[in-house]
């Protein structure tokens, strides 16, 4: 930081000196000719900056050019949303900011009962926002991946609602200067809370549908470029595959070695294919036969759950306006599947 600021300073100095002659003539004392001492002067400035260290990060309001209301208004307009002014303002107020302000007033001897602070923190709005986002994301994922197990849907949902993802969003939509927090720059948790509270504020200002569109436009696209199969860790893919095939009334998976190379070296490669009723259901390469077999089982699961790499892209943007989500519907879970198979095994022969 120090270097950048110093460089800026140097450029400013040089630009001053490189002004046209007309301007230079205004102060003949300094600009009678080319300044021979310029280099030494700039060097000195540079050394002083290094010595002084970087400047502390300051909120723009401390620089004297800050209109919080105008910035808030612009924030809402940037998303093309109509926010209620007070609600949006409340969405940015952190709990620790209120405490800090109260303490400050106490120190000044102001009675908080007669002159109330009039600030409400954003935690209620955040809770509301989180609820809306969570509900919508699950419904959307179930709509997009109807054949995926409920456990997988939950895993993808957890990724989208995770600390990391929300922080990434919060840090990149211009919350930094707007958050009213005790310290600046605000802590990580403040970004997440505020982002959730903005969703909540939108739902209250307009309606829940509008907030859901916001969620769809901002949170769901975080899945782009991510492999949803990797987000959900399947512990025993072969066992799950067996259960799935059994529930569909198909034969058990049989692994077959399709191709191998350099098998007597450490760089060996095996391609294993899985067959059910003499039909190829999945194949994968691997360093060893065991790994290849496991990966082939995962590949077969992908095919069965229709989450292969060649699946259709997510419905987003203008196309997503028409989709109708069923919030009550749930995908089949692994537990249901296992119960089914056990029941079949127990009672299937009797019937």
């Amino acid at each position: 930081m120090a270097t950048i600021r110093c460089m800026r300073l140097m450029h400013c100095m040089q630009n001053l000196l490189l002004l046209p002659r007309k301007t230079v003539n205004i102060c003949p004392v300094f600009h009678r000719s080319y300044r021979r001492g310029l280099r030494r002067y700039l060097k000195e400035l540079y050394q002083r900056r290094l010595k002084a260290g970087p400047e502390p990060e300051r909120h723009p309001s401390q620089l004297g050019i800050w209109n919080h209301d105008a910035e808030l208004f612009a924030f809402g307009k940037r998303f093309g949303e109509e926010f209620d002014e007070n609600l949006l303002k409340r969405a940015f107020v952190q709990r620790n900011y209120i405490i800090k302000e109260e303490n400050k007033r106490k120190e000044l001897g102001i009675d908080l009962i007669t002159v109330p602070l009039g600030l409400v923190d954003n935690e209620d709005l955040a809770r509301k926002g989180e609820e809306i986002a969570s509900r919508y994301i699950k419904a959307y994922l179930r709509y997009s991946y109807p054949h995926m197990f409920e456990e997988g849907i939950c895993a993808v949902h957890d990724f989208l609602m995770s600390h990391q993802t929300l922080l990434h969003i919060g840090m990149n939509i211009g919350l930094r200067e707007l958050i009213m927090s005790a310290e600046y720059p605000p802590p990580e948790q403040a970004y997440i809370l505020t982002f959730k509270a903005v969703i909540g504020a939108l739902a209250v200002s307009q309606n829940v549908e509008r907030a859901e569109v916001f969620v769809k436009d901002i949170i769901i696209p975080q899945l782009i470029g991510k492999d949803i199969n990797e987000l959900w860790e399947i512990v025993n893919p072969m066992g799950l595959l067996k259960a799935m095939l059994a529930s569909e009334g198909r034969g058990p998976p049989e692994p077959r070695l399709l191709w191998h190379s350099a098998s007597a070296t450490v760089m060996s490669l095996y391609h294993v294919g899985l067959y059910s009723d003499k039909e190829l259901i999945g194949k994968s390469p691997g360093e060893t036969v065991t790994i290849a077999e496991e990966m082939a089982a995962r590949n077969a699961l992908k095919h069965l759950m229709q989450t292969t790499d060649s699946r259709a892209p997510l419905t987003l943007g203008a196309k997503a306006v028409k989709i109708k989500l069923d919030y009550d519907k749930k995908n089949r879970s692994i537990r249901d599947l296992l119960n089914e198979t056990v029941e079949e095994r127990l009672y299937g022969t009797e019937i």
Partner: protein
Amino acid sequence: MAHNRVLQWATMARTWWLFDAYRQCPFKSSSKIAYYLIGKHKPIYDSLSDIGDHVVVINSKYISMPNDYWRVYKYFHHTGYPGGFSETAAWRLHEVDPTKVIEKAVYFYLPKNLLRRGRMRRLHIFPEEQVPTEILTNISDQIQQVQPVPKRLDEYTQEEIESFPKLFDWPEDFVLQSGFKMAESLLSESKKAETGGKKSETGGKKAENIQSGGKKETPKTGSKKAENLQTGTKKAENLQTGSKKPESQTEKPDSKKTGKKH
């Protein structure tokens, strides 16, 4: 990430190829082998990346040189000292080490950079069909040969030979080998023509030797010949061959025959 990992592994894995050099031109084969050693047959090829495959060459003893390259093609060497120059004919080199001709040709065709030695280490040449098991188990694919393997006369049945389409039969008293002795001037060179006839004869014999006796015959004759040739030091021998050209010419067909025998 496991999915990406195995994909990466499969992409970067080195395949082992088999190349059967039986009756193949060593130069054409080598340029093809070098293509696989460099990795130019992969869409991920990059000149600086070491992504080449392994190539196992078998039957390198039974390569066939074009024209009379066995005799004409020379490998040169200079020790760096005055008089340190020496040259070895291809048949001689092949006699000493039947894998050397292919190896040198591949080495020539590889790009001249730091990856060259490493790529050569991925080339495994075997004179016969016998390949160690630990190498054989690695092989998963085969490189196409560069030229069709010719069928020998003795491989055809008598019926096939008889049914071969012919436009006319040579008269019984017609001498094929001596050619058309039309002019008197040719008679004066009759000696030369005779040797030429011998040559073709021996050539035919040679082919038979390779096929029928190639694997059966003991290398005794070959080694005897080598002994005969190695009368003095290597240098002296080279000087001999260098200085006595007409002699060597007449000698060559015989030596070639024996050279190919074992």
